[in-house]
């Protein structure tokens, strides 16, 4: 089916009442207006995208539709009928289903048990399970959603777990399916499969609402799209009549560079050399297998891979947080860490390694600290900030002001508690702290996770600037686009192995995707 056919299908139903209609929805949290006079209408059996930056109000809006929150004012109509949705049960009864970004599944239950959970039909579990089994068989064949219903959910790959989430919604007879950032944890191939499923659902009359910040997905799969900014709807578009640059501009409110502008890298001497490194976690599982690579000064080496394939462990090993169980790591030709000579994170940082951790609130910042306190985490014992006994708070404050200025952290208030900054500004604070020390090697994990487009642009520029200043950068990201546009050399990790290396200029998304799924060994790949 061609894209134009799809859209004709979408229009076919235009005479029916809209599947979902939101009229003048307002929602306040305290003094923050999360949704302001939001109105939108979604035709039945279409795929409707909702895009916007973090904090644009798209998740709040969907939470109102699914009964997590109640709007302060406004009206919800489902299939033309005004409907009150005060709880998720009422939403489900109205035929609405939701697939969350983080799956709501019990790992130790089978697929069947997970689907039935909360929707048991009788008093006896056995009866429920046998009726559910029949219904699931029907659903699976109808929508092409094959999953072995007797497998434990924990044993399924992420793509199939998501399928279980969709089945759960369909089992509850959802005719309107909301998906919140569904591709965040998927490989490109898995995403492709998901899109096929969604198209199949639409063709069988299901209305799909897709929340995402990836414009490419919007362009690829949706029929219509709503752009939100600052809690308001700024535009409705028919997907065929818009473009990525237009949507990006609508989201941010100004023109945005989608590609990173950078020159050709000029790699110098080897800064980081990793040889046959392995690590075993507390449960005795080997997380890194025989990992070897190097990073030169003046280049960005990107590590691509589906989340959970050893990238996080690799970063932690290099930063001195996780212990090495075999192999050796050297920095500027000198031994840094090996099995018998561990170094802690403080010592590694002292040798000129900056580390922007993957999860800023879990590792890189302390929520309850003032910005100025968070801005010296890791360098708090430095002479600049300490006299014999007491800390030089003036110096800390001055340093924080300087960092906020240099990295445009807003609001510029060193006394504001860390958690009260937006995600992008928290991230800038971490980057400022790590980059300001002018490290010879910068480890960066997920630099733009949960960060607004405007800030992404800024952060990418800064990372490239680090490279151009002759520093070595190791970048880990699950966003393939980010890796492809930033890195000069790309390594792909799968199951703790480095399964391939490609020069960024020669990389194709297709090829990388196959490597990420460990399905291909390209000619250029180095098996380790």
């Amino acid at each position, binding site marked *: 089916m061609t894209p134009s056919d799809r859209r004709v299908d979408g229009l076919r139903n235009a005479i029916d009442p809209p599947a979902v209609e939101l009229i003048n929805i307002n929602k306040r949290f305290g003094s923050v207006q999360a949704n302001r006079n939001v109105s939108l209408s979604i035709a039945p059996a279409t795929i409707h995208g909702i895009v916007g930056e973090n904090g644009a109000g798209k998740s709040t809006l969907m939470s109102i539709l699914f009964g997590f929150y109640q709007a302060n004012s406004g009206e919800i109509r489902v299939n033309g009928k005004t409907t009150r949705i005060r709880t998720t049960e009422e939403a489900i009864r109205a035929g609405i289903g939701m697939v969350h970004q983080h799956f709501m599944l019990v790992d130790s239950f089978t697929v069947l048990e997970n689907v039935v959970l909360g929707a048991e039909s009788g008093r006896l579990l056995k009866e429920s399970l046998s009726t559910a089994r029949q219904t699931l068989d029907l659903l699976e064949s109808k929508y092409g959603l094959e999953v072995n219903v007797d497998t434990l959910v924990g044993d399924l790959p992420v793509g199939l777990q998501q399928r279980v989430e969709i089945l759960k919604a369909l089992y509850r007879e959802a005719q309107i399916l909301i998906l919140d950032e569904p591709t965040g944890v998927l490989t490109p191939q898995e995403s492709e499969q998901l899109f096929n499923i969604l198209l199949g659902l639409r063709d069988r009359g299901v209305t799909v609402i897709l929340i995402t910040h990836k414009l490419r997905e919007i362009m690829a799969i949706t029929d219509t799209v709503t752009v939100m900014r600052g809690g308001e709807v700024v535009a409705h578009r028919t997907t065929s009549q818009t473009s990525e640059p237009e949507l990006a501009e609508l989201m941010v409110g100004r023109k945005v560079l989608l590609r990173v502008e950078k020159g050709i890298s000029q790699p110098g001497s080897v800064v980081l050399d990793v040889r046959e490194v392995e690590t075993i976690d507390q449960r005795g599982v080997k997380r890194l297998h025989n990992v070897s690579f190097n990073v030169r000064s003046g280049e960005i080496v990107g590590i691509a891979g589906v989340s959970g394939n050893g990238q996080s462990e690799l970063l932690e090993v290099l930063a001195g947080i996780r212990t090495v169980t075999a192999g050796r790591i050297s920095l500027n030709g000198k031994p840094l860490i090996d099995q018998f000579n561990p170094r802690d994170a403080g010592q590694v940082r002292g040798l000129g390694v900056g580390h922007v951790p993957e999860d800023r609130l879990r590792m890189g910042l302390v929520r309850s600290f003032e910005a100025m306190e968070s801005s010296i985490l890791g360098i*708090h014992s430095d002479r600049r900030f300490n006299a014999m006994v007491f800390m030089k708070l003036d110096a800390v404050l001055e340093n924080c002001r300087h960092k906020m200025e240099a990295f445009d952290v807003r609001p510029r208030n060193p006394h504001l508690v860390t958690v009260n900054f*937006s995600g992008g500004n928290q991230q800038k604070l971490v980057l400022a702290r790590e980059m300001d020390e002018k490290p010879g090697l910068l480890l960066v994990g997920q630099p733009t996770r949960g960060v607004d487009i405007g800030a992404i642009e800024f952060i990418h520029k800064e990372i490239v600037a680090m490279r151009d200043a002759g520093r070595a950068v190791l970048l880990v990201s699950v966003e393939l686009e980010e890796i492809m546009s930033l890195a000069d050399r790309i390594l792909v990790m799968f199951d703790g192995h480095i399964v391939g290396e490609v020069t960024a200029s020669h990389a194709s998304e297709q090829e990388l995707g196959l490597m990420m799924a460990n399905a291909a060994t390209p000619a250029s790949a180095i098996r380790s």
Partner: protein
Amino acid sequence: MSATRYEVPGWIGTVLVPTINICLAFLVSGLIIVVIGEDPWQALDLLISGAFGSQEAVGYTLYYTTNLIFTGLAVAVAFHAGLFNIGAEGQAYIGGLGVALVCLAGDANLPTFIIIPLCMVAAALFGAAWAFLPGYLQATRGSHIVITTIMFNFIASAVMVYLLVNVLIKPGQMAPETRTFAEVAWVPFLHEVLAPVGIKLARSPLNLSLALALLCCVVVWAFVWRTRWGYAIRTVGQNETAAVYAGINPKRCIVLAMTISGGLAGLVAMNEILGVQHRLLIDFVAGYGFTGIAVALMGRNHPFGIVLAALLFGALYQGGAELAFEIPTITRDMVVVIQGLVILFCGALEFMVKPRVESMYRWAHRTGTGS
């Protein structure tokens, strides 16, 4: 939504809300007093005048306050490292042992200016040692600090009973107490210190340990908020993963925080043993270690708040004792009920009042500025 929350000024959370909570606690206490057939206004009057009505009353109140500042600070320091030290009781008790050993050995031939600092060091060291062990076990073995410190309270109690009954008891008496220490080792009473300069105070157990307690408040404040070690401890308490990321050794911080905590608890002995009793006796800690937990919680683990909370509980101790004495139907247990209600409203039910007060402030603010 990650948008910045609307800022409510600090005094609402630190002054207004606790005041409302205390008033609510007294209101409910008043209702209970009505139920048992007494006049709540008279009870309140007795409580307040019992705590603050005379120089002697104030002296007693401040004497109780001194103990509670020490134990409150102890609990707070551990709390900043994310540890719930239930063992201030036992640490104070063992601190008393340190003081007694120094005095028994040296009060015959050491001058005041040596023996008192020596006692202070011994009190802190013994208390610190008693907290070091659970801290070490927590850091290296993962033994939960709540469990181990509770157990250490019992061990301290048993050890002290054994020592007092069998070893340290003054020969020829029945009471399990040491002999009275020589006067050189006594921490001077405030009324005695001030008498020579012409200030006449009524006799009370209030002694110079109060000054030591207030000094400790300043030191603890400076340590926690103005040094890199305090910074490290707070980081461990708030986010251990971030601490490891920053190159901070959480084990070392846990042990350090517990040791300091125990040292502060041990100083209770300065007030209780050297200041008032002048001999070591069974169960001299009498629950100050446990009340210290409430003091630290109410004082938000900040020395200034701890002084205020210690004063409140000190006043409840002293005023409550007077109240129980004056009105026989209001027993000591009834006074404990009032203390319990204060803890309940200020600690457990804090979030009942706070959001409402804050939204009222916001509402008033919005209508006031018309924004």
